[in-house]
């Protein structure tokens, strides 16, 4: 009963509905990839989990406990972002930010924080506003990792980072996760780069969850199937087709469903080609949708 649950959660900002009636369960000690287009509702979802925003409707729970007005649960989450709002405290440097963070997060690991500062070559004496965009991201990452929160959320943890630092972050993340398992949700656009980290994938579009599956299951289910349009319509009529691309009589369907050995054999007999699809392509096709074709 340690899973986090969204029950009919909606978050609206004036006339915009950022999260639209989501019901979702986030399992303990798993790494989730949260994938979505710009404005799909990724950051809002993370902020709701981190209690930085309150749902307009619905509830967020951990087990039987409600997150709203619950200090104990709020203290269990850490949202690491690429920027920290230091409006009004422009003289703050990274050292001061870490000092304050160490007081806020109950499980803060100071030794690990110092190690991360060395690994990322962060100048902690320099004022925050004078640091580069990449270093702002690094500060967020260090807070996320050293905070040791049972629920750690990373919002696009690669913004402004060069490939070397990105790689370093992925290594540190995996290493730390093996030693200190926790629930992590990582929102991202760089799907191919982060794909290997994810155990489960959440795809969000216009505030709704389009997909919530184990990565392995997705890999087994997701296929591109190419062939005669009429035959495809016939053989895939009971399957979940997420995208269709038509070229004359030929068509390319993206399917996210279980296909049996017999069905695959039937495809071969009827001149239908099929191949697996990577997560990025699946996301793009899911986002495009079927109706728009």
């Amino acid at each position: 009963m340690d899973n986090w649950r969204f029950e009919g959660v909606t978050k609206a900002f004036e006339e915009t509905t950022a999260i639209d009636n989501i019901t979702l369960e986030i399992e303990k000690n798993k790494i989730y990839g949260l994938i979505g287009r710009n404005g799909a509702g990724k950051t809002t979802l993370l902020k709701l989990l981190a209690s930085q925003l309150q749902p307009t409707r619905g509830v967020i729970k951990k087990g039987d406990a409600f997150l709203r007005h619950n200090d104990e649960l709020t203290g269990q989450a850490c949202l690491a972002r690429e920027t920290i709002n230091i409006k009004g405290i422009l003289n703050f440097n990274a050292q001061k930010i870490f000092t304050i963070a160490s007081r806020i997060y109950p499980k803060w690991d100071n030794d690990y924080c110092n190690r991360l500062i060395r690994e990322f070559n962060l100048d902690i004496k320099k004022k925050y506003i004078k640091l580069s965009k990449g270093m702002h991201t690094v500060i967020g990452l260090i807070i996320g990792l050293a905070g040791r929160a049972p629920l750690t959320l990373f919002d696009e943890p690669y913004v402004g980072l060069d490939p070397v630092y990105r790689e370093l972050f992925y290594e540190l993340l995996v290493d730390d996760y093996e030693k200190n398992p926790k629930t992590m949700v990582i929102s991202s656009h760089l799907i191919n780069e982060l794909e290997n980290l994810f155990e489960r994938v959440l795809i969000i579009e216009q505030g709704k969850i389009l997909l919530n599956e184990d990565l392995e299951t997705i890999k087994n289910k997701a296929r591109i199937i190419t062939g005669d349009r009429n035959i495809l319509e016939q053989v895939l009529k009971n399957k979940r087709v997420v995208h269709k691309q038509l070229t004359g009589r030929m068509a390319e369907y993206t399917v996210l469903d279980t296909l049996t050995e017999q069905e695959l054999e039937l495809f071969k007999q009827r001149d239908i080609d099929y191949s697996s699809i990577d997560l990025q392509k699946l996301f793009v096709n899911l986002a495009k949708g079927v109706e728009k074709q």
Partner: protein
Amino acid sequence: MKISKNIRKSLFEVEKISLLIISVVVLVNLGANGLVVLLSDAEATSYFIQQLASNITLFGFIYLMMYSINQAITAIPFLVSLNCRRKSLAKNVMFNGLTRSLFITLIIIFINAIVFAPEIGLDSVTGIIGFNISSNNPVILLTIAVIFCMLLYFIYSLTTFISLLGVKYGWEYVLTAVFIILGTCFLLFRPIVLLFIFGRQLNLFIFLVLILTAIFSLINYRSIVDFEYKY
């Protein structure tokens, strides 16, 4: 308990800036007044002492207002962005206001009691809310201190309320609120003067301050607990 203490320390980190600014302003002001002592005749010392008292009284109020605004627009969003525990944060904001009000009251009463002590013999107005501050009677000083502290905490709660309103809904509401307050003060100018010098309608004033402070404190608590970090 430890978390609450840690939040208090974190709030103080942000407060240091307000403290620095107000200290510089007070020192510059007193420095300028101090020049009068050097350049003027024998009356200058008593003038400087009066200036010291009025400066510290005025800046006590200004500091408390600055502190509450700074907390609402800087400290609270910053700490919420670090997933600070909301109820502890809200309680600390309330508690800090109370301690600062008490501290400023003590300084003001202490300095005024010394400055307007009979042995110094200043002939300025020494009546506050109907009491004679120069009497040095502990009961009178305590009564003045309690009323002063209540008034300071009321101002703190009101400024925090307006600032949180500004952060949540936009600063046009703050401007409206400021104009409403100024307009009310203008309309009630005579009763206010009578109240602060002669203590007219003091009981009603205390009752209103207590009720309004309780209302603002409750609203502020709820606003901080439900604070949304939208950046």
